[in-house]
């Protein structure tokens, strides 16, 4: 495989991972109108749970199965006792509340799991590599991540476009009062959506754990990148999140290769350009 193709593969693969994290963020915003800074912290929670449970059970898949309900529950509790009271308030308070939540979750992680850095081994049957070029191989697990991401994207699409719950969710996004008037329990619906969003972020953290590492404060960086992805794609649009993630993944990879001096700034520059062209993002609704 040529150098250029391999770099493209790197970028696309990175994009898949970003999509997985960003989709939950855009979902929560698009439907509930809530800005959630703690999204990255959920990602971290997922990664730590995956590491800890994989360590205990010896199986990553078992760990993911056990951790997912925990993260959903965490999302539900936070919605029930916090976020719920902020829907009608200015976004400012959501920012502040979830900012506080980051501090709490980060610190809770340190209390529970300490400050060490951890690696999570990939399951044996995914631990191999594929030869790409004379000198380079590619880990199968990374490809598995990509496949998982496509799966999640498809599942989300089907859930939202094709199921009854998805229909109500979509309606709730635009006509909250109408859906309530039709007898749906909006409060419960929102709780579910928030739980789902939190679980998506955590799931990304779990799936990425073997390819990444697990370390304190790991959510911070991913949060900002998710923001960039969501803003580029258009807030609330899953399709947009996918396009944004690909764009950011590829731009970041080629930024490193072609413009090493400004690598840290590339994705932000891309974002600024997209916004100058379309202030509402690639797939955003016009305000």
């Amino acid at each position, binding site marked *: 495989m040529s150098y250029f193709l391999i770099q493209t593969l790197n970028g696309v693969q990175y994009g898949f991972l970003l999509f997985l994290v960003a989709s939950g963020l855009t979902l929560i*915003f698009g439907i509930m*109108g809530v*800005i959630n*800074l703690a999204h990255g912290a959920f990602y971290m929670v997922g990664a730590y749970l995956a590491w800890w449970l994989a360590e205990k059970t010896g199986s990553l898949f078992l760990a993911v199965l056990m951790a997912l309900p925990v993260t959903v529950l965490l999302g539900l509790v936070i919605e029930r006792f*916090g976020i719920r*009271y*902020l829907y009608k*308030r*200015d*976004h*400012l*308070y*959501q*920012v*502040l*509340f979830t*900012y*506080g*939540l*980051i*501090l*709490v*979750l*980060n*610190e*809770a992680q*340190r*209390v529970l799991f300490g400050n060490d850095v951890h690696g999570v081994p990939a399951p044996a049957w995914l631990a191999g590599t594929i030869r790409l070029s004379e000198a380079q191989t590619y880990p199968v697990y990374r490809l598995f991540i990509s496949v998982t991401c496509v799966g999640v994207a498809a599942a989300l699409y089907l859930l939202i476009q094709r199921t009854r719950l998805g229909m109500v969710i979509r309606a709730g996004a635009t006509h909250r009062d109408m859906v309530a008037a039709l007898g749906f329990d909006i409060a419960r619906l929102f709780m579910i959506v928030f739980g789902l969003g939190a679980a998506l972020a955590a799931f990304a953290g779990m799936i990425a754990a073997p390819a990444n590492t697990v370390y304190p404060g790991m959510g911070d960086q991913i949060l*900002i990148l998710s*923001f*960039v992805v*969501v*803003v580029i794609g258009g*807030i609330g649009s899953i399709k947009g999140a996918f396009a944004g993630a690909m764009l950011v993944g590829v731009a970041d990879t080629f930024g490193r290769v072609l413009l090493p001096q400004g*690598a*840290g*700034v590339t994705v*932000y*520059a891309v*974002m*600024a350009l997209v*916004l*100058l062209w379309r*202030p*509402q*993002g690639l797939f*955003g609704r016009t*305000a």
Partner: protein
Amino acid sequence: MPSYSRVTLVLLALGFAALALFPLVGETFYIRFFTKIMIYALFAMSLDLLVGYAGLVSLGHAAFFGVATYTVAGFIDKLGIADGFLILPAALAVAAICAAVIGWISIRTTGVYFIMITLALAQMLYYFFNDQLYWGGTDGMNISAKPLLALGGFTLVDLSNRVQFYYTALACLVTAFVMLSVLLRSPFGHALVGIRANEGRMRSLGYDVQRYKLVAFVVAGALAGLAGFLESSRATFATPAYLGWHESGHALMIVILGGMGTLYGPILGAFVLLLMEDYFATLTERWLLIEGLFVMAVALLMPEGLAGLPRRIAALRRRAPENGDG
């Protein structure tokens, strides 16, 4: 629009007087610490202009503070120029220009977009300094001297003197307070508040809403630059962390804790939050846990902040007997 009640005015005057007298009784360390608090109060006040009056929730405000600190560092340690009368306007200008560019891109959007975009664009500036070895990279850089505020060989203010620096910061804080009060009383200020209340209506009345927002953004950015100038002169240090979004979040916290939409709120908030953080840190290594819970509680329970407490308490009192009667 600040139209202060008599009680508020008296309290404000007393507060500023107490700050003016503090160096006479305060111990050196606390003079230094209070100076820092006043600088952060100034910074938060500039953010309040956006958040509390113009309705622009910026999560990237620290960038303007930060670029000013690097301007000071650049003049003194890269160019070898220590003339404060050159550095100060330059720091304000750099902050204002950055605010103009970031603002120009950001104000095309509203709501959550605005929050996210200001955050991301500020991070871009953060990474610029974080990645450039010329600026000391992640280590930041020491500033080898304080800006010189001298005219014709006569030193007007000696910034290396802690007490004089304290009064400089106080003077800046009071000046900014008065300046913003004037601004908010002006037609421009009223228009800002109108935009926050009902943007669409302002537009159809004939206000060029984008222009008002941009100007407010630049004014706030320049004031943040003033705070950055003071902080880097005080600490003689510039670090990328000054530009980071945690600093922006912290400033937002000060604004809301104190009470947004009141200019004295951020001052109150800065004193309470910084002194409290100082105290939390002495209690436990896990003080960030306490701070996080505190922040969440403020967001949920004290939307009007400390400045709104008297009103809330009064409202509760009024309601209580009614409930009793019913």
